[in-house]
């Protein structure tokens, strides 16, 4: 119980810091923030910006007003030279798109990386293993956006097998939705697969040398069962750690991939906000993404204790 409480306190502290950081970004703008946001705006619009975002008040007041609004779902507004519109509507529609991309990539990564790692660990040192490892090493060095652009060109432009921009929601039909998501997902997943497989493989090779694997074999159970039921489980912790470390990169990658494939997610929102000087929108979106990331990490921590009984009892 005390354990959970401590974690909760820690999570809340981190969330507070993250929100403060997101809020504080606005103060980094050179000169008067209003001129950065709406340099060609009318006097009215400028006054509105100043008022709605409490820009004339002190930092603590600004922060708490911002936080209050944020918690209530008010994520600020987009400002054109003459009008404004709320950001939250946009975020609501775009969030699922980014989430889908992240989840699909994660899923693809796991279903490819885990069997690949188990297989290469089993045949470690053989020629097949070395070839696969070399390929993975190369894949690891390819930036996700590079792969995205290459795929967009080859598959989208040259071969015309799949569209290389746009999006259709899940509800509009499975293939309709999938065809827009395939290339972005693959672009994101490839580098992830390379990283995952390498780490999991070396972890499994180490596990396979342990005594309890020989013992399990000596019970007469099948080799497959030994590999999957006995050898993989202790390595699942490493898997989780790598997943945790990689989610951050995955989120960053999603942001860029969305821009390349014009998928209307939070990433594209960021890019458009930057281009359009929508710094308020930018700030809120960054906050949303950051908080989502913190919560995901909390989830991973919880999964940790589920997977390893030693962590649960505090023995580790």
């Amino acid at each position, binding site marked *: 119980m005390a354990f959970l409480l401590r974690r909760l306190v820690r999570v809340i502290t981190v969330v507070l810091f993250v929100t403060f950081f997101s809020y504080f970004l606005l103060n980094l703008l050179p000169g008067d923030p209003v001129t950065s946001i709406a340099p060609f705006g009318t006097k009215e619009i400028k006054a509105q910006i100043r008022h709605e975002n409490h820009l004339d008040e002190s930092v603590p007041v600004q922060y708490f007003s911002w936080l209050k609004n944020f918690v209530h779902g008010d994520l600020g507004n987009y400002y054109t030279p003459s009008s404004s519109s709320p950001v939250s509507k946009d975020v609501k529609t775009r969030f699922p798109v980014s989430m889908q991309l992240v989840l699909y990539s994660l899923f693809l990564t796991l279903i490819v990386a885990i069997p690949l790692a188990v297989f290469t660990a089993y045949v470690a040192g053989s020629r097949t293993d070395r070839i696969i490892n070399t390929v993975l090493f190369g894949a690891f060095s390819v930036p996700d956006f590079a792969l995205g652009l290459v795929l967009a060109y080859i598959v989208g432009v040259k071969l015309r097998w799949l569209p290389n921009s746009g999006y259709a929601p899940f509800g509009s039909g499975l293939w309709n939705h999938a065809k827009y998501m395939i290339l972005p997902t693959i672009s994101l997943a490839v580098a992830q697969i390379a990283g995952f497989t390498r780490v999991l493989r070396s972890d499994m090779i180490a596990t396979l040398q342990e005594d309890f694997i*020989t013992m399990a074999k000596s019970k007469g159970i099948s080799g497959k069962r030994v590999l999957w039921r006995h050898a993989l489980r202790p390595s699942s912790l490493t898997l989780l750690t790598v997943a945790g470390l990689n989610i*951050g990169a995955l989120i960053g990658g999603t942001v860029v991939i969305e821009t390349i494939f014009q998928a209307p997610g939070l990433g594209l929102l960021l890019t458009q906000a930057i281009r359009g000087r929508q710094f308020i929108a930018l700030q809120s979106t960054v906050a949303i993404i950051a908080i989502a990331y913190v919560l995901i990490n909390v989830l991973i921590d919880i999964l940790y204790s589920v997977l390893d009984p030693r962590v649960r009892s505090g023995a580790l």
Partner: protein
Amino acid sequence: MALSSTDLGANLAKIPTAAGVKVEKEARKRLGITGWFAVSWLSVISLAALLAPWLPIAAPKADFLDLVEPNGNPPFHMAAHILGLDGNGHDMLAQTIHGARVSLQIALGAVLMGMVIGGTLGLMAGYFKGKIDRVISTVFDIFLAVPALILAMSLVAFLAGDPAKPPTGIFNIERIMTLALGIVATPPLGRIARASTLTWSEREFVMAARAQGAKNFKIMFVEILPNVLPAMLSIALLSVGVVVIAEGGLSLLGVGVNFTDKPSWGNMIAQYAQTDLNDHPWLVFTPIIAVFLTVLSLNMLGDVIRARFDARETTL
């Protein structure tokens, strides 16, 4: 005395599947073909980047408009412009080399900053432990709570301000990028320095130095640092690759060096992806290949160095 062959035999018996011999050999990687390739490419590109203004190549933004063909100028078609021209008549080879200059400058600057600041903080945290460690680690954790690319992007976007008025002078956009990426690089490098310091501080020679009356900072920098440095070196090499990729990602998001001012690998990719992917794809692929080769070489080198020092650890 060296491991007796009887011990070796008994230990081999523990490995149920892996070819113990071959796996051991892999670990002791000599600077093979891959190592030499990596070193060659990196030397060539670094030298070219360093000497760019004095090399007998065109100025990067000089336009050879009269040579521009309607279907574009792909590489290896013209002797005078070996990598072709872009839509505005700029020589691709010149842009690539000057782009290397910018991208590598930013990457090296960021990693250097990360090593110095992160390294120092990590050393302090690992050596003094206790409260100092808690504070430093919490700071690291806070920065790590935001996905890296998001953090970098928000720092650059807000520090740079209005995209139509890019900052110049002392805090020009490259410096801002180096600073932002350096801040992002500090926590991971700091964490590694800390972990490494923790292991090394336990060793007896530290106790011996203290017993001789050496001051803390002297111990940290004279005794511990030389041992921590090799571990950080391989990570540093990989980090340079990561930052080069990050610069690409940031440019694609719309923050970064302005293409019309100066080429960088990132803004070249971003620019040509927008305008030329369908008709003149080679323009996009040229900087992508440059990035890929550089990151691949850095990863290879980092791997070789890590293997070398892993071996060193075990013979200690």
